[in-house]
């Protein structure tokens, strides 16, 4: 039996299906797929899979950022790397292996750097971002950056964020300002386990307490001036010895080197199969988003393979008070002559510009002008802007209205 096409996804693109949007067009789908520039953040366990999946989904332009080098313990899942690559840049090796396998007109650019090293212009060149990160902080940073581009420059770059832990994983589809951003999910993210200092110092009960005691308190005393490096196995063994002395002193059992490394490095167990699942889900969403050949999933998805198999997509709404995405900051400029308009005139102007219904205009949390109850606020209404704001250069206003989601933040600049 043969398949009539040389490229496996061609049939899907050529033939719209029963769930495809009625406005779908093959030509534009194919063009968007082949011209979009995708940024992959992280070339680790998820990153290796993501690069493979994107390259075999018809994406032709990929950039990949990773600041890390390859370690021996990566090799149980980061399949683009071999033992001889240990110590080399993940993004550079991964790009080379993908390019060698895919050949053809695939353009793949590696960046051996931190995400924080790049400016707005760098990020603006991408059509979509796929994240395979292991740190919450890096996710928050990129989320903040991309949301800022959406809010200030009206450049919408969707982010697909994947995460794994053991047999479990998750995917988030973030369309900046339209759907929940990473920060909106923060209340769902469990806090990192920490141990109170007094437990470590005086009442240790678990092996973990002894290990953290050695890590936080004892190391600097015994090895002054030597900054602990958890990638140096000799140092990890020394740390283990310190923790063991403590454990024996207090009659605590169960200290191992494996546990020592796990605690001080905050190791999250990782396996190839979970990365394969989560990356496949992420890139499937990229493929559908770019081509429109089928609708996208709901906002987020959770996978758990510990007991049977459960993969459940779910709707997740934006947090109304999200510190990153709930405010849309817009600036309007008022010239010097305009500073002679009254507060009321300014309010009407704002209402017209943003086609609002009955807005409440506030400075911070205090009402400046309320279209619903004009009489109650009319004392200040006849003051001019110049008088009211006593010659300030700019003022920030918060506006609430039924025509706008959340709070609109307008910066009025007196030029």
């Amino acid at each position, binding site marked *: 039996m043969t*398949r009539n096409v040389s490229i496996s996804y061609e049939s*899907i693109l050529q033939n719209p299906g029963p769930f495809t949007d009625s406005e779908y067009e093959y030509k534009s789908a194919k063009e968007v797929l082949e011209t979009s520039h995708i940024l992959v953040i992280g070339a680790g366990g998820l990153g290796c899979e993501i690069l*493979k*999946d994107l390259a075999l989904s018809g994406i032709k332009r990929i950039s990949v950022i990773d600041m890390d080098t390859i370690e021996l313990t990566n090799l149980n899942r980061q399949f683009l790397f071999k033992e001889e690559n240990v110590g080399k840049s993940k993004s550079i090796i991964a790009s080379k292996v993908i390019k060698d396998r895919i050949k053809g007109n695939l353009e793949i650019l590696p960046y051996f750097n931190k995400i924080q090293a790049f400016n707005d212009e760098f990020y603006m060149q991408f059509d979509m971002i796929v994240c395979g990160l292991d740190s919450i902080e890096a996710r928050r940073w990129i989320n903040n950056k991309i949301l800022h581009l959406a809010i200030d420059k009206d450049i919408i770059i969707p982010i697909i964020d994947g995460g794994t832990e053991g047999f479990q994983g998750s995917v988030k589809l973030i369309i900046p300002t339209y759907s929940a951003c990473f920060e909106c999910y923060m209340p769902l993210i469990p806090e990192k386990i920490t141990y109170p200092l007094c437990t470590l110092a005086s009442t240790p*009960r678990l092996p973990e307490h002894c290990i953290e005691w050695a890590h936080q308190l004892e190391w600097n005393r015994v090895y002054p001036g030597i900054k602990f490096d958890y990638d140096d196995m000799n140092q990890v063994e020394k740390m283990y010895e310190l923790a063991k002395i403590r454990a024996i002193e207090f009659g605590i059992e169960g200290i191992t080197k*494996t546990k020592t490394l796990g605690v001080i490095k905050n190791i999250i167990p*990782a396996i190839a199969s979970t990365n*394969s699942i989560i990356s496949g889900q992420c890139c499937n969403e990229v493929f559908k988003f770019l081509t429109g050949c089928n609708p996208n999933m709901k906002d987020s998805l959770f996978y758990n393979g510990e007991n049977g198999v459960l*993969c459940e997509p779910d709707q997740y709404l934006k947090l109304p008070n999200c510190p990153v995405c709930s405010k849309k900051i817009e600036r309007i400029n008022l010239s010097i002559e305009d500073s002679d308009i009254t507060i009321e005139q300014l309010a009407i102007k704002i209402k017209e510009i943003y086609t609002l219904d009955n807005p409440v205009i506030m400075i911070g949390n205090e009402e400046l002008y309320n279209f619903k109850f004009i009489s109650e606020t009319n004392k200040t209404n006849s003051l001019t802007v110049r008088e009211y704001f006593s010659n300030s250069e700019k003022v920030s206003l918060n506006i609430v209205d039924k025509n706008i989601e959340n709070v609109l933040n307008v910066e009025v600049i007196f030029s």
Partner: protein
Amino acid sequence: MDDINFGSKYDRQVRLWNSNGQQSLTESKICIINVSTTASELLKNLVLPGVGSIVIIDSSKISQNDLSTNFFLQESDLGSYKAENLAKNLKILNPDISITPITNLQLNSQLFSSETSSTFWKSFDCVIYCSISNNSFIDNYQDQLSNLLWELDIPLLKLSSIGFFAYLRIQLNEQTIIESHESNFYDLRIDHPWNSLQNYINSIDISYTKNENYYKIPYSIILTKLIQTFKYENDNKIPTTSQIRKCIKSLYKTGDESNLDEAYNKAYLIMKNSTNLSNNIKYIFNNVKCLNITKSSSLFWILTNALKSFYDIFHILPITGILPDMESDTKEYINLKNLYTEKFNIDKKYIKEKVIKTLKSLDRSPNEILNNEQLLDLFLKNSHYLKVIKGTKWDSIDKILEIFKTDDEHLKNKALIYLAFLSFESYSKEYKMYPTINDNSKLRAIAISILCKNKDIKTFPEGLEKMLDELSRSNGNELHNICSIIGGIAAQEVIKILTNQYIPLDNCLVFNGITGKTSSFKL
């Protein structure tokens, strides 16, 4: 967590299945039939964690279409055997394992039909069959294969992906799991302290007026004490969580007592009845294999038989011996921990002696358990969370049609994609080609002919037509991302089966790449 794999390339995964699980993987031998992209992705996920020995059976050659979706086949290998090249490329990912391709068609024929074939299959711990290949020769033998493996008691996974859809069906006789990793609740015995724990509790006063170390007492002792006092003062009535919380509030002196905060937060633990058995354990205790031990019984069933006799006598399961961290000082905590360990060893001794007695009565060597102290410890620690899965034999259509004759719309919805796949496979077999969008009516006719095999099915299932159309849309092509997903899911299942840890799927799953959702059901 021992240090056998410390710092090695397997470090990050032994944190999930420990070195005993890793050893099981290393010693395992599996076989995969038919090389699709789904198969390659699945194998990648088993080669990397170190499944020791893999046999790949496929006699087809690499086409341009394969290269567009299969990462582990290369352009330079175009036209040569898939199995050989896949073996070569996967071997690079993990030089420590063995991968053997079998491409000889003549040999394949013998493998499936010869009467001595069972010796070949017996060597495998798990067999994976990737359906919908262009290798119709092997496809004709799949009924014989599943019959044979069922008789040999070797797990069989059957999976496939087309376009945005995929399915996975597991055929296994029985899986008896000790390390289910399901331990959500600690076995503290707040409601049922044993004698030495009770004596220890009696020796402690929890009020600050009488005990200056009241703020160092672990919460389990506080809760036990409060329940007992409450029952004594209220005609043996069991308190509610909020009544206990009220009692805890009165124990504060400074407001800074972190052990009392913890007792307050964990007060719901008093609701746990330690004498209750979970449904899993009830199922095991009622299982004929637990009740009737024979000479050929596995150690698992002999252990569960001993566990049941323990429960019949003491009306409670042995203690798991695992004590969570509790705010207290080291001395109080270690004292308490020692009590739990001591009780664990007493309970373990009972089980051990019972097992030895059983083994002797069966004319088997007591060394089976004496030389396996690690297994005994694991069994006791997990004795509340044991899990037995009783699988069903694969059959082509009878069981799925049983679902479609019911009124259970939810279940029918779940099984829709599976039925669509069966229609798709049946079509491919009959017409020797994959259906395209021009073949929708023929594909529907096939689906109807399958449904007609059960006289009780009166209507064409709602939604099936769309699923068939979505399948035919891809003209038999796999999408790489969907292969990566189902290959990952199936690999997790193989790992769970080989390590005998965590709980495998029971026993059928479909994946819908449009919604991103999996649905599982039992056939």
